[in-house]
């Protein structure tokens, strides 16, 4: 294996890792804000992918052009989920933790069934779009353009989330995270902040889904496989930490790429999970998690 090959593997890991990071960022945002792990997160990503596929199948619109539309759509879905289900789950008196887990889990099964109902159980892929099949070469390393675009957009979306964190709204978000009861005293509507947090989380995973649809198949189970990686990313980076999601996402992309290249492609996730467990044994709250 030459240096160029190593670079090639590393580049592939980085490109995928940035997508993982954005998927995890949405999950981490929601968790940090209200202590809820969204077990339907992968299914939200799948919804975005199907939305792209559906519009593309009708009139051939390029996935890139659909990015803002689908992101806004997912933002709305996130807010609807919060008001329809999560607000209720937060107000139960018994077993609050388990109710949250299983409400979002039931939602995940429901979305999977609904997608199968509308689009059937087979795999779909979006072909012949503007970036499809194009690569660029950089010093002997071949970079497929759909993946490049995906990681660039994910990085941009990540930067967007960090910018939002600096605004007035971001400070309200931070305050609500610190003490959800005290913020009412300074005129912050907790319910509105939570709903917007869900909107942002769903929108972020929606952006990742749109870009992923450019080079990855769409099927009723695509969400589940990404969701496990997303949980690992969030737990590895530390629940609620945006920087942690970014670092852990890239780390996981790299570990996955190198496991596949040097050990056995079908065991690439075992490598990821082993690293995750090893880190958590040394640092139970994740790389950047707060106690």
């Amino acid at each position, binding site marked *: 294996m030459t240096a160029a090959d190593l670079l090639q593997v590393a580049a592939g890991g980085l490109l995928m890792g940035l997508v993982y990071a954005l998927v995890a960022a949405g999950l981490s945002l929601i*968790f940090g804000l209200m*202590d809820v*792990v969204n077990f339907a997160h992968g299914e939200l990503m799948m919804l975005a992918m199907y939305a792209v596929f559906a519009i593309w199948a009708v009139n051939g619109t390029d996935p890139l052009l659909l990015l803002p539309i689908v992101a806004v759509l997912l933002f709305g879905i996130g807010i609807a989920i919060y008001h329809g*289900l999560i607000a*209720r*789950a937060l107000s*139960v*008196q*018994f*077993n*609050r*933790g*388990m*109710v949250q*887990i*299983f*409400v979002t*889990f*039931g*939602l*995940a*099964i*429901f*979305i*999977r*069934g*609904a*997608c*199968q*109902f509308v689009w*059937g*159980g087979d795999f779909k892929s979006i072909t012949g779009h503007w970036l499809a099949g194009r690569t660029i070469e950089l010093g002997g390393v071949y970079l497929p353009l759909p993946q490049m675009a995906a990681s660039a957009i994910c990085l941009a979306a990540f930067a967007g989330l960090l910018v939002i964190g600096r605004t007035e709204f971001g400070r309200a978000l931070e305050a609500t995270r610190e003490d959800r009861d005290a913020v009412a005293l300074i005129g912050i509507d907790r319910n509105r902040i939570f709903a917007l947090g869900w909107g942002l989380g769903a929108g972020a995973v929606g952006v990742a889904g749109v870009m992923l649809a450019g080079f990855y198949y769409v099927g*009723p189970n695509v969400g*589940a496989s990404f969701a*496990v990686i997303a*949980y*690992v990313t*969030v*737990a590895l980076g530390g*629940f609620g930490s945006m920087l942690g999601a970014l670092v852990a996402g890239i780390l996981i992309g790299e570990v996955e790429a190198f496991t596949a290249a040097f050990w*056995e492609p*079908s*065991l690439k*996730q*075992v490598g990821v*999970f*082993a690293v*995750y*467990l090893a880190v*958590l*044994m040394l640092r*139970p*709250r*994740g790389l950047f998690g707060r106690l």
Partner: protein
Amino acid sequence: MANAIVKRRRQELVVGGVVLAGLALLPVPIKDVYTQNLIIITVLFAGLAQAWNILGGYCGQISLGHALYFGIGSYVSTLLYLKLGIPPTLGLFAAGIVAGAAALLIGWPCFRLSGHYYAIATVVVGEIGYLLFLNWDFVGGATGVFIPFKGESWAELQFKTAKLPYHFVVLAFAAATWLAAFWLEGSRWGFAWRAVKDDVVAARSLGVNIFASKMAAAALSGGFTGMGGALYAQYVGYIDPDSVLAGHFSILIALPAVLGGVGTLWGPLIGAAVLIPASELSRSYLGGSGRGVDLMLYGGLIVLVALARPQGLVSLFSWRRKSDVPAA
């Protein structure tokens, strides 16, 4: 007060005996094979959910990786039978011991974690197990293992008339998990585990060994789950990683306990009695189209029950003990 508890426990035992007798007599009016199969699967899941409940309910450690213990159990008894000729009646206990040992091995690092970190670690450990079995040729890899029929035998748990004897086998399994939970509710261990669930710091200040409590609960819970896996393998006659180790299976094991009433004696049974028939019936009447209507109904049901009855379906029966429910 102590007398009231003793009296209540005696009542629970009587109710348990009546329910067991009722379930044992079910095959008398029900001759239809489809329904018998449905009852067997339901009772098996009631037992599995009770096993999960020991760790997840009483000790409060939400494991989302129990499919691993189930899968280990089913593979252990099956491989012992096929490769060494050890009958599944013995293999069943080997399955329980190995799965319990696996739960200890996994618990040792994972119980350093708590809350969501623990739940996600169990998901990940389960996924690792699934991927390793999928790529391990000695145990059949992705193609799985087929158990050939070698003639009617109780020792090997093989029956030509398939359903009826299994009805009693799974009933014995579910009754054993119920008795374990019943014993637990009155034992020192059970009090320690519930203390760990409610308040770790307070439990420690009372001299409860947190780590040992979690480990014991995990071993008991994993062991029973492994035995359930062995029974399932022998019942269906074919196992592969997708049918016994896949991640969604962990949720299927936990769901009846959670929706029925977590940390209660009757929750897992009630939850299984509602969920398993709902899922099987919707699958056989609506799932054939492959259009996912069954999944939508099932998912919707989970959401509805979780939101409408957060303390579990068992609370529908608790009118007589309202005073026991603490004010929230």
